[in-house]
């Protein structure tokens, strides 16, 4: 690992100012993504601003829902009694990711910011527009088994690897950030971006901005009974998703009164299935409706040479997650 400067401020304002002054500086949270990438030479910072002493760890119920500090660890969120009861989808998604040790270190802010696991991004000998803009996309014509079905561009077909983000998308989370220009709030759907011509940008956080919290609305806590996070991967545990589905339904008298659906492993951002949600509203709980919803969700999907299997896997995963969420399967 190359040399870098290191500071550990105790105040948010100091951390933000400190990064604003440093063009090649990075915040350090759990380090599970950043330190890994530094070891690989993918990121070579001049300065790390260790934010672990900032007072951003609180997890608390608020008048509008749930406030989760950006430095709360993934385990603290997944084990939080109120979150498990009212926002179980989030706890399930987090626990499906990484390992217990990593979840103890990883923070909510860091998880939102984690970079793709595309093997071409990780191999500095390979072209990758995300790592080195203008160098080309190795995956486009390469081994693209893990890659996107939706929203990709000819510059990048990588996917966002996070499990937590998929649940946050389904639960309508809001990301609170602060920078030298002051605080602002970003809806989860506007936080991660599609690659377009600038795959080097994963999200809409501006240079120097710090994530301070993730907030969940009270309305999403109505989706706490019929819930499932289905993660399909190459081994039973401790692997990134090929495809994952976060499903939460509100059901009255066997009728779906509201649906929350999002997919992971299929796009450059957590992929909310809004059209399928609209279709399901008012429908009866049965497999035919689930199949129809999955078909709608898959409209516009485009596969590459090695990820064609996902065109079948993804809709099947949607149906299965809905069956598991509603008790039609176990």
């Amino acid at each position: 690992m190359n040399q870098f400067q290191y500071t550990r401020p105790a105040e948010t304002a100091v951390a933000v100012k400190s990064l604003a002054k440093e063009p090649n500086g990075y915040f350090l949270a759990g380090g599970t993504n950043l330190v890994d990438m530094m070891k690989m030479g993918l990121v070579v910072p001049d300065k790390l601003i260790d934010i672990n002493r900032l007072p951003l760890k609180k997890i608390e119920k608020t008048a509008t829902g749930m406030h989760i500090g950006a430095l709360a660890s993934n385990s603290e969120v997944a084990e939080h009694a109120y979150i498990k009861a009212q926002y179980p989808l989030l706890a399930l998604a987090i626990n499906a990711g990484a390992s217990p040790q990593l979840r103890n270190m990883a923070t909510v802010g860091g998880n939102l910011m984690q970079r793709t696991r595309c093997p071409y991004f990780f191999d500095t000998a390979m072209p990758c527009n995300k790592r080195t803009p203008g160098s080309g996309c190795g995956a486009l014509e390469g081994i693209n088994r893990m890659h996107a079905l939706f929203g990709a561009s000819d510059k990048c077909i990588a996917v966002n690897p996070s499990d937590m983000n998929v649940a946050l998308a389904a639960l309508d989370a809001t990301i609170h950030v602060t920078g030298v220009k002051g605080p602002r709030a970003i809806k989860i759907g506007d936080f991660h971006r599609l690659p377009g011509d600038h795959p080097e940008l994963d999200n809409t956080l501006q240079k120097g901005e710090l994530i301070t919290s993730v907030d969940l609305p009270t309305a999403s806590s109505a989706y706490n009974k019929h819930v499932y996070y289905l993660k399909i991967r190459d081994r039973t545990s401790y692997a990134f998703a090929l495809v994952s589905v976060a499903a939460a339904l509100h059901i009255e008298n066997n009728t779906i009164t509201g649906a929350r659906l999002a997919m992971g492993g299929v796009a450059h951002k957590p992929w909310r299935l809004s059209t399928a949600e609209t279709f399901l509203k008012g429908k009866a709980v049965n497999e035919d409706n689930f199949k129809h919803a999955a078909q709608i969700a898959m409209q516009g999907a485009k596969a590459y040479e090695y990820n064609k299997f996902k065109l079948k896997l993804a809709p099947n995963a949607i149906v299965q997650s809905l069956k598991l969420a509603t008790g039609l399967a176990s």
Partner: protein
Amino acid sequence: MSTTKPCTPTDGEDNSNGTRRDFLKQTSLLTAIALTPGTVVKAAENQWDEKLAGVFEKQALHLEVNGVKHELMVEPRVTLLEVLREYLDLTGTKKGCDRGQCGACTVHVNGVRVNSCLSLALTNDGKKITTIEGLAKEEELHPMQEAFIKHDGFQCGYCTSGQIMSAVALLKEGHSGSETEIREFMSGNICRCGAYPNIVKAIQEVKGGMV
């Protein structure tokens, strides 16, 4: 009672400040000649090379490891795993992948299990660390260590210290209700010898003894 031991790196290059400062001075001078003269001459006039040397210098790190307090000086890029193994000679904690993928480096920080290979040492300043060397009381092994021996929870032993540190934490976390749950919550520790069935048995035995 804890004591304070003075610590230095156990081997390798001369890390004294003088050497590093001189080295950085020379390299920044060479860079100075190679790059645009204008700004660089100004940099030299302002003694920026001196500042450059200063900013990369080591920083103080206070750790309590297995009940013993340590004060060391480390570069920011040194990981907790490297401090344990290279500076404190606690080589029971293993380096497997060095990338968070295998769990061989698992230790407890303030009672919580983490991968020490992905944790910068300085981020742990002021914390209490427990390694495999800190589990036994004098000659008496920790029940988890006893159970691993009894059930043959290992073959080559390379993953074992990480497995045991993880297993001890697992019981505290309360995710050891069933074999499936134990396997899921031990999945951060890879065993290339495949000792998993016996590792699960060892954990179940200690768990049984606790109820």
